[in-house]
């Protein structure tokens, strides 16, 4: 199946940066009500405003290969990156995932995230790929970082 790219299977079997770590400013717990899958995600940000950097994203996740791969890629693509860049990555991921297959994703921006491009063709799975990202933006919101974030509504982008 085109959906299950090798990269997805690798990430889902060996999720990067998995586990819950300290320190963190915000911890959130998100559930996907249609399947019951869950993710607990902690966010550690250093610095303020334009100089803020995502120091750590740690998580404990239980879910399908798509959701596991997605949160693993999230950690990989955001840890150590400026917050503004992480948000650009999020926007690009979201645009790709909700494009119904029209946006193949830009590897420059989302890295391994491009492996999830196929998900956009399966509306019921878009939520899987967004689960971790929604937790991430929610944690960001709770950490008090005032960055314009669109789409923190977990319902958005799913049919």
């Amino acid at each position, binding site marked *: 199946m085109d959906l299950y790219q090798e990269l997805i299977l690798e990430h889902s079997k060996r999720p990067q940066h998995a586990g819950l770590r300290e320190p963190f400013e915000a911890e959130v717990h998100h*559930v996907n*009500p*249609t399947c*019951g899958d869950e993710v607990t995600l902690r966010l550690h940000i250093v610095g303020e405003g334009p100089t803020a950097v995502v120091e750590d994203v740690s998580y404990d996740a239980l879910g399908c290969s798509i959701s596991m791969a997605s949160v693993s890629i999230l950690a990989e693509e955001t840890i150590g990156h400026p917050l503004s860049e992480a948000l650009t990555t999020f926007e690009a991921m979201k645009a790709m995932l909700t494009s119904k297959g029209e946006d193949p994703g830009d590897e420059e921006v989302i890295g391994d995230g491009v492996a999830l491009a196929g998900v956009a063709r*399966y*509306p*019921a*799975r878009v939520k899987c790929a967004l689960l971790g990202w929604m937790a991430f933006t929610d944690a960001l919101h709770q950490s008090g970082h005032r960055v314009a974030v669109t789409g923190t509504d977990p*319902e958005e982008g799913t*049919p």
Partner: protein
Amino acid sequence: MTASPFSPEEVARIRADFPILARTVRDGAPLVYLDSGATSHKPVQVLDAERDFYERLNSAPHRGAHALSEEATAAYEGARERIAGFIGAAAQDVVFTKNATEALNLVAYAFSGSPHPGIPGSERFALGAGDEVLVTEMEHHANLVPWQELCRRTGATLRWIPVTDEGRLDLSDLDSLLTERTKVVAVVHASNVLGTLNPVDELVERAHAVDALVVLDACQSVPHLGVDVEALGVDFLAFSGHKMFGPSGIGVLWGRRELLEAMPPFLTGGSMIETVRMEASTYAPPPQRFEAGVPMTAQAIGLAAAVDYIDALGIERIHAHELALTERLLAGLAARPWVTVVGPTDLESRGGTVAFVVDDVHAHDVGQVLDGSGVAVRVGHHCAWPLHRRFKVAATTRASFAAYNTVGEVDALLDALDTVPEIFGDPRLRGAS
């Protein structure tokens, strides 16, 4: 004289879309259907849309990851978007119900004696002694009885706006009826008996000034006028699909987003939950929170096709066409002194529903005689019993129009009506004396 924007040829083309209009009733009389206020007929386009769904996409929406389920979900949510757009709303603020009655009950049941511990903001929906619910004397039972029951459950008091002899709301005493005790104002947009269009603007302004919520029963307006929820300014709006060329078994509740979000669930079960444990559950955001169980999928798709059908004709043109028929009927009735119209006798703030009584002949007998000529009208209290009591009649005869009705059908009604005094004696003489 108001002219219909539909040419006779256009009406003929419309009629061809409704197979049932070609049938005869009783002993061969062509059907003259003037009861669309009770339920409208369905064009083949709507029937085809439903059937096509069943034959190609049928599946339970929001309940699976397989291809059919995805396609059914897209079709169902697409229908929601289409229907929401028709009333100027966002899709996520539109809840599907089985009919308008369920939609109105859903709002009434959101209120209770105490807030729901799991729904932040639900204090807004807690009522008790000292609180008041304001309705009108012209409400359909669907927008009256749920509020009576709510008051019974919570100890709140039901009050009502009276109706004038002309069939308009009597707002002269509104200051004492609508006060800071008032928590809800539930009112019909277009009366299903009188045809009256109520002054929503004024009621909304007055209600919101005291922080009361406005629930609009739009059953008889959405099918016939252009309705825009934002322009109306109400808080909730309910209507049924079956009165607007849609299938039976589907209704719509629109609500202001922040209110829907603060509302406790009503029917509970599958697909409206967030998490379920044996001990307790948490609930999904609207509109899912209010759509428990496998929904009226095919019916939502049929209703979206009905909206397409209306849009193709143009709701403004439909309204003008119906008003032209209404004017002709009102003129015909005015020429018969033994007939009394209950409700406004001109076109000012009026929809295409005309109720009347015939001197000394019971409405059911009038209806029966008309039916004998193939003319289908509704007789009775039309689920607005208090309104009939106010006019001191047990029952009225009601004609109501849709896009497919013709001038000839109005004349057929009037002709058949003339046989009533022939059968029951001649009240013309009494009427003229």
